[in-house]
């Protein structure tokens, strides 16, 4: 069989598009050619590597740097950036690609920019239900409506326009967007949605920062309405900031006037007094589950003992081993996990706690809690995870693989100054009752 034909058949095999005749031809070749079988794996590996690279690229997307060349102190402006997270994106996906009414015009183009996978030029019209994408070096400026908004999209971004001309809505799936929006009637705001939030703008000076986990809004003047994946919309007024993330209610907190809130740093008063273990400097936490007991060691990096200002410290669940009597696999009920910490801060404020998976099998699992109040008094804070892991079916359990790092935890504060952590534990719960 000529190589090109073999390649064609293998591509069709991976695409599950083989006709019965194609399949017979492919199998005949594989059965008669040992070298063909080896080549088979080379082709399969190629497809598998592309798949892995695409998934990794999405999972590792970094926080985009928000730079606005359009903003000025006296101008109405806002900056948006969002990155979608596979399996945790809650929202809708625009599939509409029919050519509809014109909603915007291309003012300028730089580098790689496409609409519906086709390159654009200056003065091109953008219709409803369009998908605009910019490459790494790409940038495009779009003028929406009759002076409603000027939008600049750049740097590996993806933007979707509204379903109809009457809707003043944009969906930023990922990337970086800067916009200048004129004053809008209250009953017809300009709306921008991200994977984590919907932001309604009536003509307000505010800033939006997002990464793949959270959307943060800080309001300088006026007021915005912000709605996350759950709960009602929340008004965020001037001088306040709010955070939206999957499953976490939005809770505005005051912002230091004129300044960014300092991020907290984990500071351990004394390494030995914090930990209960006698033989090691690690805190021992217990994960209780029905078929045995898992002990997990939480190792806290030594750097945290210093006074170096750091935005957060990562607590790693570094080891877990089974103490089950018959060494059966251990199960973590996906709906139940409780994180307890005893904490205080230099100043009153709110802290955020992020739990990230570090094992490839748990790649898409994520938990985030925000708006946990702390002040100078020691507090027991309990965070309960209630969401089902999105990559598991309801009622399904998953083995907790012993000896392998699964999660890392990090913590940071808004306006809290230093954070002092006295204890930290993770417990899996088997109780189905919800708190």
């Amino acid at each position, binding site marked *: 069989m000529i190589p090109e034909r073999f390649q*064609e058949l293998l*591509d069709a*095999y*991976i*695409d*599950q*598009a*083989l006709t019965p005749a194609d*399949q017979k031809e*492919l*199998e005949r070749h*594989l*059965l008669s050619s*040992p070298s063909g*079988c*080896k080549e*088979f*794996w080379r082709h*399969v*590996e*190629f*497809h*598998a*590597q*592309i*798949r*892995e*690279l*695409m*998934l990794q*690229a*999405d999972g590792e997307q970094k926080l985009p740097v928000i730079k606005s060349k359009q903003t000025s102190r006296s101008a109405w402006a806002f900056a948006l950036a969002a990155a979608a997270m*596979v399996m945790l994106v809650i929202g809708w996906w625009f*599939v509409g*690609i*029919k050519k509809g009414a014109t909603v915007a015009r291309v003012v300028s183009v730089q580098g*790689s*920019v*496409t609409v*519906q*996978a*086709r*390159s654009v030029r200056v003065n091109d019209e953008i219709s409803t239900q369009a998908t605009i*994408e910019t*490459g*790494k070096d*790409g940038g495009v400026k779009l003028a929406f409506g009759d002076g409603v908004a000027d939008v600049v999209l750049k740097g590996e971004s993806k933007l979707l326009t509204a379903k109809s001309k009457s809707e003043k809505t944009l969906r930023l799936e990922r990337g970086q967007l800067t916009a200048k929006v004129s004053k809008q009637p209250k009953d017809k705001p300009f709306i921008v949605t991200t994977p984590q939030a919907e932001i309604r703008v009536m003509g307000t000076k505010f800033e939006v920062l997002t990464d793949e986990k959270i959307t943060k809004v800080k309001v300088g003047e006026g007021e915005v309405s912000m709605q996350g994946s759950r709960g009602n919309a929340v008004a965020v007024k001037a001088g306040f900031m709010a955070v939206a993330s999957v499953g976490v209610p939005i809770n505005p907190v005051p912002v230091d006037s004129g300044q960014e809130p300092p991020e907290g740093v984990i500071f351990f008063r004394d390494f030995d007094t914090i930990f209960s273990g006698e033989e090691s400097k690690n805190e021992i936490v217990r994960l209780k589950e029905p078929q045995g007991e898992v002990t997990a060691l939480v190792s806290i990096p030594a750097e945290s003992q210093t006074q170096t200002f750091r935005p957060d410290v990562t607590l790693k669940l570094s080891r877990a081993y089974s103490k089950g009597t018959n060494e059966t*696999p251990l199960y973590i009920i996906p709906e139940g996990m409780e994180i307890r910490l005893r904490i205080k801060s230099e100043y009153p404020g709110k802290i955020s706690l992020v739990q990230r998976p570090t*094992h*490839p*099998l748990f790649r898409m699992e994520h938990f985030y809690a925000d708006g946990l109040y702390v002040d100078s008094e020691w507090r027991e804070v309990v965070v309960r995870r209630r969401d089902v892991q999105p990559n598991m079916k309801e009622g399904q359990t998953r*083995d907790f*693989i*012993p*000896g*392998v790092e699964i999660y890392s935890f990090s913590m940071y504060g808004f306006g809290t100054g230093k954070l002092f952590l006295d204890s930290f534990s993770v417990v899996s719960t088997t109780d189905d009752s919800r708190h």
Partner: protein
Amino acid sequence: MQQLTHEEQVQSLLVKNISQIKGFILGLVPDFSAADDVLQEVCLVVTRQARTFEIGTDFNAWVRAIARLKVKEYFRQKQKLPFLLSEEAMDAVVSAAEEEDHRWESRRQALVRCMETVAPNARRMIELRYHQGLSPTDIAKNVEWSLGAVNVQLSRVREFLRNCVSRRLAMEDQAT
């Protein structure tokens, strides 16, 4: 440095070789979601049977044997999905997977570099097919192209990437 237990060593091997294991499963189950399901099952078995693996022997061969059984089991359970390769053809390709491939990582690195040079249109095709897992038919509906046009575009970008990878590997060979 503390010595790893037997189970920890097996887990370490699993994590280290997970990409090659995924690739092997995909070859037998050419559906991304289904391959992920089988991979999870394989990893569970590897964990449970860690003690039966002898450290120092061919780990990937051991896992491939487990994966082969799990693929058969999977297709028995999902009866609506026909075998895409006959049992005989599947056994033939599995036998050919025994040799360790020392250039796997080099090809992967070359692919990373080549992906950076893919044009946005082509990149979109790759994203729809490999990231979102859409079939060419679904892609055609999504972008409002004919199925033929989508297949041509996919074929071109794959060819571009293959050629790019080959060139990079050839350059690497010349340099060493």
